[in-house]
């Protein structure tokens, strides 16, 4: 049966994360926006300690983690799978606190999601257990290159050449979210997309795990950005970067016809896009709540339960925000529920991503407008959320590339029929 109830375990997570957001994120959100490239160690260390206390499993859903089944014991009875649902709620609440800081969480985000979605049991053991280690570590995903973003991963130019017991990577990656923290500031890793056979086109593209400290993988640059300034956005230049053979995610064979290895790798986006959508909606909710609080503080009452024809413009804008926010959040929940139930969610993941990107941009833009000079002022966070919001319509696939994915799905077209 359909239920719109939040599971108790998820509710507890939300309570905990809300405390973190209120006490550790909101008070420093403006500071780290003003001091781009300063590292929020207090937040990182606190999240790391909390993660360790909770078993060190990080944010990667438990159903995807290696299970240490005690020998001779019957496997535990499984409850409903809620791993991705909990992850989405966490992303939403922490981004309600601050998106830039959320992206600094040392708990396994996009890179870990790729390992969880496409790695072997041994790879998960090797790369994901570090999130529960002594020191905090961050992870990242390196896909975009200077010549192409939305055309990725099909137009990857970074190469991976097998040499004995290693892969040797060469190429340049840009716009790597948290790349500096993953490779320089902590002993983390970056999932780098490269081709093992440039003649094979997309069928030859695979994700590889490049760990911090690997020679030939220096971070060359950190961008200055419109928003999410607490999070670094790095360039990584790979020069004869040598990694172990087992660091490839997915099959090392190229199946030119079926492209199975590539398709498997793309599954990581079905897991990551709902998280970006959830994060976007955290910002949208923060903004909508702030709008209502500021209106109330200035004596503007928002009446409820009246027809549109009787609403003031402000009442109508706020109601439209509520509708957009709630309907989109339900769509995101559906897409993660499908993940948890191991149902194909490619269409829903893109739908949620498109709509969340649109909704957070619209809500934050309108909020700045509705609040007048207060909305535009740096004394409040609304103008910051307006700047933070836009990234959600860009990273993990722009709104346009996700529309293309939706369109191909609903029209049952391949990329030759709809480009």
């Amino acid at each position, binding site marked *: 049966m359909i239920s719109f109830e939040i599971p108790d375990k998820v509710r507890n997570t939300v309570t905990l994360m809300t405390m973190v957001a209120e006490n550790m994120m909101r008070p420093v959100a403006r500071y780290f926006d003003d001091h781009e490239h300063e590292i929020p160690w207090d937040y990182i260390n606190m999240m790391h300690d909390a993660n360790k206390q909770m078993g060190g499993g990080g944010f990667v859903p438990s159903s995807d983690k290696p299970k240490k089944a005690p020998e001779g014991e019957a496997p535990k009875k499984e409850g409903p799978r809620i791993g991705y649902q909990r992850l989405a709620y966490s992303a939403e609440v922490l981004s309600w606190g601050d998106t830039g800081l959320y992206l600094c969480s040392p708990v396994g985000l996009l890179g870990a999601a790729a390992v969880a979605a496409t790695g072997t049991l041994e790879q998960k053991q090797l790369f994901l257990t570090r999130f529960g280690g002594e020191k905090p570590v961050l992870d990242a995903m390196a896909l975009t290159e200077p010549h192409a973003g939305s055309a990725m991963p099909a137009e990857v130019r970074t190469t991976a050449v097998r040499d004995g017991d290693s892969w040797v990577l060469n190429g340049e990656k840009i716009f790597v979210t948290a790349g500096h923290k993953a490779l320089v500031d902590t002993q983390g890793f970056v999932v780098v997309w490269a081709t093992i056979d440039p003649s094979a086109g997309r069928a030859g593209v695979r994700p590889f795990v490049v760990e911090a400290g690997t020679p030939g993988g220096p971070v060359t640059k950190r961008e200055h950005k419109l928003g999410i300034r607490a999070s670094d956005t790095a360039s990584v230049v790979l020069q004869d970067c040598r990694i172990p053979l087992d660091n490839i995610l997915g099959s090392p064979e190229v199946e030119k016809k079926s492209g199975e290895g590539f398709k498997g790798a793309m599954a990581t986006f079905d897991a990551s896009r709902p998280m970006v959508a959830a994060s976007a909606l955290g910002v949208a909710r923060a903004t909508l709540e702030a709008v209502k609080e500021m209106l109330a503080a200035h004596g503007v009452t928002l009446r*409820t339960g009246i027809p*549109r024809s009787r609403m003031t413009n402000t009442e109508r804008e706020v109601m439209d925000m509520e509708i957009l926010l709630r309907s989109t959040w339900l769509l995101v929940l559906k897409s993660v529920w499908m993940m948890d139930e191991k149902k194909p969610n490619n269409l829903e993941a893109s739908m949620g991503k498109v709509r969340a990107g649109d909704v957070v941009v619209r809500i934050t833009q309108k909020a700045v407008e509705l609040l007048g000079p207060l909305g535009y002022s740096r004394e409040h966070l609304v103008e910051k959320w307006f700047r933070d919001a836009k990234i959600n319509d860009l990273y993990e696939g722009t709104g346009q590339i996700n529309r293309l994915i939706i369109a191909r799905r609903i029209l049952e077209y391949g990329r030759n029929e709809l480009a």
Partner: protein
Amino acid sequence: MLPPVVEGDWKPYASAFVEPNLDFAPAEMRTTAARSNGSYVLNGVKTMVPFAAQAAGLLVYASLDGKTQAFVVPPGSAGLKVGDREAWCGLNALPTHRLTLEGVKVPADARLGGESGHDAQLLIAATQTATAALAIGLARAAYEYALAYAKDRTVFGTAIAQKQSIAFMLAEMATDIEAIRLLAWEAAWLLDQGKDAAQAALMAVLGGADCAMMVTDRAVQILGGHGYIREHPVERWMRNGRGVPNFPGLAMV
């Protein structure tokens, strides 16, 4: 009262809800009910009353001491006048009539819930939720028709669906339908759970109204000139879709 409705052959039972005012609000009915010697006396004008001419029974919503309440009114009651069939922009399969109540007297037990009355908000939430579902079904019909047409119709040698300008419209239509449907389901779930669904139902019906208008408008656009021609159903769905904000109440046939 209910057995003949659910056990007998189908007969129309109509609800008189909407009033012919531009600022009609369910919580502030202009039709009034007044107590008079153990009865209620109803006065006012209703519009969009489905099957009013053939109705086996009528449920009339009126303001009693400033609170919206529903009253069972038998057809043919003294002071009850059923007007000619109304003409609308769309929804032409459904016969509706204007209803005029001039001093219509009903017994005390005709008030829904008896002496203590009832929570009209629950009825309003239920009808808004049903209307939202209706809007989504209507939008889906238009979306599916436009999608099939776009794959079939060619321009410059390819299907129009192969153009991003069309394909992206369809992607947005599908996404909106999916999201707003969940809003309607949530309102329905809250009602089933006996929880307060007022806000959820209002959001669902407003979201549904926007969805129906956006999707049906684009369906007509995707068919181009053919969308405007009555040979295709999309112009009808666009006319029906525009009516969704006015439907709550109609959905209570």
